[in-house]
């Protein structure tokens, strides 16, 4: 310390710095510790940046579940408090944001982040901190990388398989063209599609990719058209690029059926781009919960949920929203609640192993919106792969519930 205290000014300076550092270090949350006070849920989402739109849905889902759970008496009698942080969809920022949630906010649970990249970047820290989480990754999760975390979304690989199976069984496709966005989900989905095509002995007549953001898919569609496909398989990022695909196919006179991944069910977005008839000759993979064969098998859990979201957030903010996506983020917290109450602990190991064993049963007891939860020992995805269904996203049976076309 001698060099620091050589002069009065120097000493004052150092004192100032230490004070500054102390304030910084002590600023923020006091932490809930274990057992008392509210249960804190950290929610890292890409609130600004390229996926701001989807993040807004996810945010509504978590906010809603916090409200409901607190109205229901909280988790194990403790109130729930959500702490949102912005990751800007950047893995590095997701890491520091998660670190903030763990060490600064001292959260007990995490719901998020939204993408595989961010999830894989943050999992080691979450595991080390012994925090159970449910994330938005749609690919590349297994118990090894994610000992205490589950993916809530549809697994991209299962989607890809399902898409190929349907193209073959329904359309008898001999040649298919594949188009996907160049992010992780798109790549994984595409790999699964190509693998399944080989299994089924179907030729991939053309494959195309595009970077996000994109405003025009016509050159990609022209390239697809060259191969004269029977069916187009699409793995887009959101409804926006789904709409662009439809537009481009229309403009290029490429009039073949499209089988799309889950993102193609974002009908509000796709119709805003390509018009009300965007889903002519278009089938998508989706959750079972928000689809129905006819008005008679519409699930009231889903319609009630839609009504509640609309009531809470207003027409403007929910226009074009994918309610099933909101519902997954909403259900995530309810599932964690079940895990904590079931295992009587917030310890990650106990919560996850309880959930892995009892999820299906728990799902029945909790007021969940989705209905196809099923975990197996070797999977880290909450959704039952066999529950994937095919829908016509353009047609609504009742508002927010889309037309199912298989298993009817």
């Amino acid at each position, binding site marked *: 310390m001698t060099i620091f205290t050589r002069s009065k000014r120097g000493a004052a300076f150092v004192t100032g710095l230490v004070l500054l*550092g102390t304030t910084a270090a002590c600023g923020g949350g006091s932490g809930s510790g274990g057992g008392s006070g509210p249960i804190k849920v950290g929610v890292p989402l890409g609130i600004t940046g390229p996926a701001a739109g989807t993040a807004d849905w996810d945010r509504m889902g978590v906010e809603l579940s916090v409200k409901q759970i607190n109205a229901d008496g909280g988790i194990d009698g403790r109130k729930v408090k959500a702490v949102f942080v912005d990751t800007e*969809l*950047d893995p590095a920022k997701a890491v520091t944001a998660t*670190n903030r949630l763990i060490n600064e906010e001292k959260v007990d649970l995490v719901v998020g982040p939204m993408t595989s990249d961010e999830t*894989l970047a943050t*999992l080691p820290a979450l595991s080390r901190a012994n925090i159970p989480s449910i994330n938005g990754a749609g690919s*590349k999760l297994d118990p090894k990388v994610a000992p205490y975390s589950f993916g809530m979304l549809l697994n991209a690989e299962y989607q890809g398989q399902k898409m190929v199976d349907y193209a073959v069984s329904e359309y008898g496709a001999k040649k298919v063209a594949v188009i996907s966005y160049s992010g*992780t989900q798109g790549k994984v989905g595409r790999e699964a599609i190509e693998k399944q095509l080989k299994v089924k002995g179907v030729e991939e007549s053309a494959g195309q990719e595009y970077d996000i953001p994109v405003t025009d898919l016509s050159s990609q569609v022209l390239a697809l058209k060259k191969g004269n496909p029977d069916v187009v398989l699409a793995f887009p990022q959101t409804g926006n690029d789904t709409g662009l695909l439809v537009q481009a196919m229309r403009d290029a006179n490429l009039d073949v059926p499209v089988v799309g991944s889950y993102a193609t069910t974002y009908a509000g977005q796709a119709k805003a781009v390509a018009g009300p008839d965007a889903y002519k000759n278009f089938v998508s993979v989706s959750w079972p919960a928000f689809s129905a064969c006819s008005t008679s098998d519409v699930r009231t859990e889903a319609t009630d949920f839609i009504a509640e979201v609309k009531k809470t957030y207003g027409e403007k903010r929910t226009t074009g929203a994918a309610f099933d996506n909101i519902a997954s983020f909403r259900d995530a917290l309810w599932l964690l609640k079940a895990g904590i109450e079931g295992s009587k602990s917030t310890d990650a190991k106990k919560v996850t192993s309880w959930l892995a064993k009892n999820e299906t049963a728990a799902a029945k007891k909790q007021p969940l919106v989705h209905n196809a939860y099923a975990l197996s020992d070797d999977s880290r995805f909450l959704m039952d792969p066999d529950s994937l269904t095919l829908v016509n996203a353009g047609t609504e049976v009742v508002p927010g519930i889309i037309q199912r076309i298989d298993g009817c």
Partner: protein
Amino acid sequence: MSTKHSTRPRLIRRELRRDLVAGTMLIAAATLVPTFMGNLFWQQAMLLAAVYVIAAVGLDVLRSQAEQMSFGQGAVLGVAAYVAALANGVWEKPLIVAAGLGLAAGMVTGMLMALPSLRVQSYYLGFVTLAGALALPDLIIKFKDQTQALTGVNVFLDGINEPLVGSLNWLTIGVTLLAVLAIFGGAVLRSSGFGRAMLLAGESPEAAVTVGLRPGQLRLQAFALSSFAASVAGVCYVGVIQYVGSGSFTLALSVMLYFVVIVGGPGKVLGPILGVVLLYIVPDHLLAGLLDYRLLIYGTLVLVVMLVMPEGIAGGLDRLLRKLSKRSDDRSRTLISLAPILAAAPRAEVSESDEARTPLLVVDDVRRSFGSVKALDGASMTVERGTVHAIVGPNGSGKTTLLNAISGLISVDSGTVELEGRDITSTSASARARLGLGRTFQQPRVLDSLSVWENIDCGRRSAHQIEWFEEAIAAYAAEWDTMNSGVLPHGQRRFVEVLRALHAGPSLVALDEPAAGLSHGERLEFGQLLRDVAKTTTVTVLIVEHDLDLVWNIADTITVVDGGRVIASGTPAELRNSTTIAHLFVGVDHVAG
């Protein structure tokens, strides 16, 4: 040599020391206080901030020291980080090897981006580097099998994260030290002749070549330093974040780093640190709770800061501190006086050796056209050693073009230029300068950001320096080193440039209209200096000048140029009565005899 007594180069200039101490304390406090308080979050956040500081210091070398525009710093950091992560996490190399591979990959990337700087400059270079940063994420995804882009790469570095005392670990020690080293490195570079050469080459490549510097090489060296810093930052990044993915290193990172340099205060020791505080710590951590209004507040904050401190935070704080301490802000009107230097000139003339009698410079039938304009149309002249040789002629007659052809700033279409009997027609300007051809410009190339002495002492120096001159200016070095060249009046800036040219130890110094803008007294002084230089050394002075009074008084030989040709040449006495040139100088018949 005995001339160095008061110009002993200092490793770090005095005015940088206060900032270095402050910077070191800031960095150390930022990383160590949370560490000792056991706050893991702030520890990691500050380490990442330190990583950005390292990269920004490197970028500032490029931006402020070498005047190169790069939007690719984030890509260099990214490649180094990605390769280091792959090497450790996937290829399972030991930490040290992984770090080495990361550094190497970053350097290769940096140099690939630097090569275009030999061809393209300013925004065009900005574009080329931006293209690299834009392409990196796509390339990582394209080669997904090699880069594991689908999952990204997790790295588990338990060794360096093992706590030693409290939560202090090797990573914290290493990153903190490297960040401190980075700001010291920046200060050492700024204080060095190498740094000044870089600056001159960046701001005025044409002036740099006339003092024997190679701007292209200096640019590459600047890129190398900058890429090294970015690569070190990249390797540290892996240690701090322990994950790399295709989305980790987008253009946004490169833009953020550039933004840090500008907002923090380009060319200032504290600039990168303060920039990182405002552009990383504030929006990502201090405002993190705000969500919806975060970006609006952050953007507005930066706008307000720039309105208050347009020169960047570090520069603005400097100004503020000066105001507070009521110190005169360096704008002292001390002038450079040539008189004492002249007084030091030995009165005795040097004896002429045999060598001295051969012509120093021979220009033979030199031609050069710009489009359809024949700027030089067969000009020939001979310059004798140890003389003052003036080139005169009307505006647009080709005087400056002739000078440029001699110093190699333009190439000639035909004809030859010989220096000391050696054909230098195809020799580069920089090499000509190293052979002893000095040069000044109509618009003095004086760098405002350097002191007067730093401006004089920023080129390569040849072996044969003018000894009495070196001794004379050495006595002033310390005083001039405290003078701010930004506030020098025009005439004084010329002096600085002439002193710089003489300091390089030339055998011939070519001056382009050196007397323009000088006061009458300054002209007299200046003429005397040129005569003394020529008479007491073997240095030859070649001067293009409008002021015929001056020319007639000091020149041994006068060459008259018109229409790109030499139309007369001789001593002032010979020319005074020549009728062929009389019409060119109507109105100057008062020329003294």
